[in-house]
């Protein structure tokens, strides 16, 4: 630490002695140089690995590009095909929206429930917090998706448990009516990160409010509706937006559980999985880029919509 500060001082002294023409850049460098140097890894990552590829993909979305030959400009043809002549796009949209609509509310409700339970002064809270957070750390991984496949397979653990109660469970992952539910349950199981944020939000609510409420005779249930929920709306809003964006981008579980096919009968054909199939399965990188930009647009619209409606239900303290 000391060494860094020393250098900064010396740099500053040297720069000030410079003539005026160089002076502006030199003084900017002197003032912020160290900061930019520290930022450099992130800057390289942002421009090289995020912004650069994003711009390239915008260009590619107007081309026909098979990954091997040079891209060929086709104008809006890719977007026209998406809008008019791609039944799989429509199928992928349906599956993805269904997944978002099912998984986000269930996950948030479950996360809030667990957060409230943990907030009530459980002994060994930190241990529980860590345990409950664990699925979120593991959840996106291939290993968990494989495990899920085993659990929900026709003769997997879930059906063995059901059999104890005399219920013959279906083959969850390989029946088009149920496969999406296994993915929703997998998503809800990864409730850790919204839970931690809810927990932090709950801790912000002043306890004297509850005390006042109970003096007035309000029951727990009423306290929850009148105090907890309204005061928690900014946190709910944040979690909802973040989880919705995440749900739109979900890929790994569907990829593993369907073996990359999106089957049975496209019932797990997540939008990103279809995008991946087009890009790397069918060598249509230009078309896949157009699909990616449509997804960006959809997520942007959803987020904007959330922000616009938020003023009617999100309450901020002054």
């Amino acid at each position: 630490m000391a060494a860094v500060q020393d250098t900064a001082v010396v740099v500053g002294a040297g720069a000030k002695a410079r003539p005026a023409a160089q002076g502006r850049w030199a003084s900017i460098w002197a003032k912020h140089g160290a900061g930019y140097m520290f930022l450099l890894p992130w800057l390289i990552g942002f421009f090289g690995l995020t912004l650069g590829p994003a711009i390239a993909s915008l260009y590619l979305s107007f081309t026909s590009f098979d990954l091997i030959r040079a891209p060929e400009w086709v104008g809006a043809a890719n977007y026209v095909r998406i809008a008019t002549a791609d039944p799989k796009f429509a199928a992928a949209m349906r599956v993805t929206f269904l997944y978002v609509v099912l998984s986000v509310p269930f996950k948030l409700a479950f996360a809030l429930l667990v957060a409230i339970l943990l907030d009530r002064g459980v002994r060994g809270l930190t241990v529980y917090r860590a345990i409950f957070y664990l699925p979120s750390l593991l959840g996106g991984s291939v290993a968990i998706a494989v495990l899920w496949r085993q659990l929900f397979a026709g003769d997997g653990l879930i059906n063995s448990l059901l059999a104890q109660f005399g219920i013959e469970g279906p083959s969850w992952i390989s029946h088009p009516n149920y496969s999406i539910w296994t993915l929703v349950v997998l998503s809800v199981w990864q409730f850790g990160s919204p839970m931690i944020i809810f927990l932090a939000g709950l801790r912000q609510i002043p306890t004297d409010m509850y005390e006042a409420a109970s003096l007035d005779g309000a029951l727990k249930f009423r306290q929850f509706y009148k105090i907890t929920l309204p005061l928690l709306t900014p946190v709910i809003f944040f979690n909802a937006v973040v989880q919705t964006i995440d749900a739109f981008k979900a890929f790994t579980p569907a990829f593993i559980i369907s073996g990359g096919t999106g089957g049975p009968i496209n019932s797990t054909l997540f939008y990103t999985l279809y995008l991946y199939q087009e890009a790397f399965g069918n060598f249509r990188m230009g078309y896949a880029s157009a699909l990616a930009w449509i997804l960006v647009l959809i997520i942007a619209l959803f987020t904007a919509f959330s922000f616009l409606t938020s003023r009617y239900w999100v309450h901020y303290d002054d």
Partner: protein
Amino acid sequence: MTHRISRRSVLAGGAALLSYAAFAPRAFSEEARLRLLWWGSQTRADRTNKVSELFKTANPGVAINGEFLGWSDYWPRLATQVAGGNAPDVIQMDYRYIVEYAQRGALAPLDSYLGSVLKVEDFDQVQIKGGSVDGKLYGISLGANSTAMMVNTVAFEEAGVDLPTPSTTWDDLARMGIEITKAGKRKGYYGLSDGSGVEPLLENWLRQRGKALFTADGKIAYGANDGAEWFAMWQKMREDKACVPADIQALDQFNIETSPLSLGKAATSYAHSNQLVGYQAINKDKIVLSSHALISKDAKGGHYRKPSMFFSVSAKSSDPELGAKYVNFFVKDPEAAKILGVERGVPESASVREALAPSLDDLGRAALDYVSGLGALAGDLPPPPPSGAGEAELALRSVAEQVAFGQLDAKQGGETLVNEVTQILSRG
């Protein structure tokens, strides 16, 4: 002033590092480097790496760097490497993709090495032609295989059902399936796998009807009524419980581990002859190969000897001749052949087959006997599938599932399939 000096020295140091980084590989690259990429199991990797060691011993000063992946991860990786100008020198290539890669200029034509570096005169000429696209040679076949039915002999015995023979018809097979299911010797066990979504099986059935999957100029070569009859046949088998129900078949990701046979759900599965080694490795019961059922007693067989896979050389390779030399070693050296066995199919070279025969184990011999014993069941090699064939295969699977789960009837299935495949092929 300290600042300037320090910056300069930092710059100088950086420049030195950069130049070192730029020139260092060259200093080491006195030996020739060869990069290989293939798909397959650990067994295949071990065999391949041993052959590479052998090649290095025979050609001192060559460094070989081999990588392998599973089938579904392989193609994205290869496509990305080719796009990035970083393709491996020697590429394992499939019959399904060779046209796409060759026509896009990713593979080096090998014709100029024939006779000099590549000594494949004693290959079956049909198989040489199989590796050609637009009149140029882009792939050397690593072995021949044929589509086959994997049969669990123990499950057949338990149910008291005779094993299928080369003259078994689809009607016979359906009856066998029903008997095994009815015998109920194992819990939740069925006679047959549902093959309605398995493209090589459909192809075999179509060939018996004098049709094919694709024409030589890359169009669909069967009609909606063919598709409808195909789906109707399987629909009946599902209704009769000759084959597994839809939700069990849907577990199959079309690899050895997830096939109904390996999952312990059915007594048959549809695969390729060189996969017998892999099937037996994960199944306790004895597995044998059987040719596919016939549409009628006097029908011609629909089989053909297919190049199981090729080795191709990248068009961007810095030393394509060395690549060709490696490929030649792989398919012609007798020691290499003993290491490789028939895991990649039956060797194409007659002399290698002879050298190999005495050292084969039972499984290897069974695979070899199967491919060489097809006799009248085997016909001509069809032209390589056109680009879009991979997508067409997924379409067959999806339509077959829609019929199996009752979303379409067999007739609608046939129409949907033909429409989708036609569209896919027209997009290319």
